[in-house]
């Protein structure tokens, strides 16, 4: 899958497609086919052809950085982040929207990145755990998780933190009970729930901008 930050290099989808145009003799036949209408597997296509026709262009802003990508429509936002953009802070815990480890913000709203295709987010802004801190300065929620030991193994932690930030922003952190209900989409198998609630309470009551 081709991937380049827009300001780095020009080899996004269009570029990849041009390269492929030059190379492939099969192209004439396929040029009129809107990508990716052909099932490359079924059509027995050669690898380069298959690769090119299976992808569609996608523009995404992730953690303030603009990307121009070519992706298969079946690539989820989660797999795109982890495998193509190497933003592995966003975790895969179930892949079915049943654990919350993959929680990111899309246009400011918390969502399960495993349950949507990346192409559906064309033109949108995504924030992952890697984009939460202000440079070296941790986000208050990150600080609070460290202070209250709101994790053990750390695997659900990015999702918990992204969800916790949203929980406070949404105004759903009014009481311990409300926090627990609105954080229930994030499973922590280590069971650090009490400490996570304490961390969220501290941030909420601390009055810092989240």
């Amino acid at each position, binding site marked *: 899958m081709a991937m380049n930050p827009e300001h780095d290099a020009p080899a996004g989808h269009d570029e990849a497609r041009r390269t492929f145009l030059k190379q492939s003799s099969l192209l004439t036949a396929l040029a009129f086919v809107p990508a990716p209408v052909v099932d490359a597997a079924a059509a027995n296509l050669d*690898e380069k052809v298959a690769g090119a026709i299976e992808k569609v262009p996608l523009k995404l802003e992730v953690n303030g950085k603009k990307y121009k990508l070519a992706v298969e429509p079946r690539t989820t936002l989660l797999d795109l982040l982890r495998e193509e953009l190497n933003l592995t802070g966003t*975790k895969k815990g179930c892949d*079915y929207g049943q654990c919350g480890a993959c929680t990111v913000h899309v246009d400011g709203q918390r969502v399960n990145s495993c349950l949507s295709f990346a192409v559906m987010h064309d033109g949108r802004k995504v924030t992952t755990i890697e984009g939460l801190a202000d440079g070296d300065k941790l986000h208050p929620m*990150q600080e609070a*998780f460290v*202070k209250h030991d709101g994790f053990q*193994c750390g695997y659900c932690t990015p999702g918990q933190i992204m969800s916790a930030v949203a929980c406070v922003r949404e105004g759903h952190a009014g009481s311990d009970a409300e926090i627990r209900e609105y954080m229930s989409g994030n499973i922590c*198998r*280590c069971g650090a729930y009490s400490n996570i609630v304490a961390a969220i309470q501290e941030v909420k009551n601390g009055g810092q901008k989240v």
Partner: protein
Amino acid sequence: MKAQDKQIGAPMNRVDGHLKVTGAAKYSAEYELPNIAYAVLVGSTIARGRITSIDAKAAEKAPGVLAVISHFNSPKVPGFDTAGKDPSQPATAGGPIKIFKDDKIRFNDQPIAVVVADSWERARFAARLVKAQYAPEKHKTNLEASASEAFLPTAAKKNPKHPMNDYQRGQADAYKTGAIKLESEYVIPTEVHHPMELQAITAHWEAPDRLTIYDKTQGTMATRRDFAREWNLPEENVKVIATFVGGAFGNALHSWPHESAAIIAAKVVNRPVKLMLTREQMFTMVGYRPYTWQKLGMSATPDGKITAITHESIGQTSTYEEFTESTLAQTRMMYQSPNVTTRYRLAALDIGSPIWMRGPGEATGAFALESAMDEMAFMLNLDPLEFRLRNYTDKDPENGKPWSTKFLKECYQLGAERVGWNKRQLKPGSLRDGEWLIGYGMGVGTFGAHRGAATVGAQLLPDGTVLLQCATTDIGPGTGTAMTQIAADALGIDPKRIRFELGNSSFPKAGTQGGSSTVNSVGPATQEACLALKDKLRTLAGAGNAAFASAKKEDVTLADGYLTLSSNAAAKVSYADLIKQGGDKAVTVEAKPGGEGQKYSMYSFSVHFAEVRVHELTGEVRVSKLVSCADAGTIINEKTAGNQMKGGAVGGIGMALMEAAHIDDRFGRYVTKDFADYHVPVHADSPDVQVAFVNQPDPHVNALGTKGIGEIATIGVAPAIANAVFNATGKRVRELPITPDKLI
């Protein structure tokens, strides 16, 4: 923090906290390697039988596919043929599945092929195109139906001294003739560890005879040994990296078929291969807490003295490995009873092998024992806490040895106060808040204070910081943090100047992180390595400085920039000078347990008190208070240890109220496949768990005084909740989990 402040006991923040909250911590599927390929397993769709054919043509032709490997075309794994060298850790008989070696199916979803492609999407798609034909055989997946075939574990048959043998003190089954007696059967269903990180491995053959794997494992050394054996390689040619492990709870104590599959795949495609299980696959091929049937008989005198206990259990295992666990251990040593009989049996089913799950067998056994204690207390019209006190043991009744330390009474007191035990009524159903019935219950847990050998390397770096290394892992308890604190005290320096590296089989060796033994084992090694380093530096400094030459190692202080003596502040040697002087500034020290275990019975203890609310119409149970008190010896870090206790308590809530993996026996296949079917506790299920430690050092386990926390955090929680449900409703649920259908 001042250097002289004692770090042991301080609630220090985790040393890896920053990495975990920023997403920078790398787990085993997150390493960037050049030209990486992706592997997806294809599972069998029958529970028992043979594969007659595999049609991989469509998959092989699919875009991006690099290989489809099955027993028809897998390269030979040399270790699979070496007799008696099976990489079997828990097995006392048989051995693990040798993947892609033959056509035999031993459980449903057993991996029959692996598809390797250049992206997840392509590998997953192609995996669906692989079609297999089978010659199925009749399978067995129901424990109760196989109970009549249950057998004594082979290891016990072979060795009369094996702890899985039948146990008897006093008269056998004496409870049957007791004046006041009970006999109850208990069932715990199959429970699955389900760490949040899906089991994953990245396998990289760096050379034809050199393998590096980034793996989810609780023991880098054990994993290295297993795969070195599989490939007939010297152990030093295999490197296992597990810097961060996204939870495990026991399911990474064994090497599993998917790991072998990834290594084979990497060999075939000659590229690094990443393999991550799906959540469905986490049910079928990486272990579980086995379905267990138990029967407990107990008799007591009217004044509340237990006269006899008989505890029998049948646990599930696979057809190819005999998995055993200490389900009956607590019954033999917890209460004063002149007559105790235990009988442990296994039933072999066509399901993948179980593996120890947090608290393991002891948590299963404690559900029966601690429920029965509550039942007997009720029969005797006694407060269950009082009943336990009347049967308290001041020495180990199983072997007559003194306890190394036992502060369980102190735990009882702490917990009873905090939960408000005095509100508890003897008569069930006495307390309510609207439609919610309120009840209180308690459950006791214990687990051996195990310690093994461990080695830690320590070295002074030119910048005056100290680097410590050990092959141990940290699956979540905060091992690196605790070791940093221990080292800080031993070295007398600020913990910020210490780096403890772990999770790498190339580091000095340590056992697996399991059985609550890590701090007990690695802690003393860390302490001793630091003291040895100080002595080594003193000796080096002594070459040019008489004060150091004659000083004791305890006297040496590693100040900021120089070495000094606490007895003689004028004595100074700068690190720069030490470095200039040359010579090795590193030590590697092994610490081993002595003969303490011969003299003492060494256990951690816990008690859990639960307040529950049960809705009288809907049967829903909410744990409104949970207080866990532990006698776990010295607490190295109250913050992380407290967190571990809370986590164990939450695990106990899951065990008590919701966790159960169900198999449709007609197909021999799980119908619970994900977190929508298999419920684990969410935020809303957890009260603000309260934790109290006695925090008294045990002088016999090790010099630090630790005894271990991980297991006792869970053992006894489920019966505490079940007992509280009885106190609230008068309904005794003996088959977990306590779901609403059982209470209405």
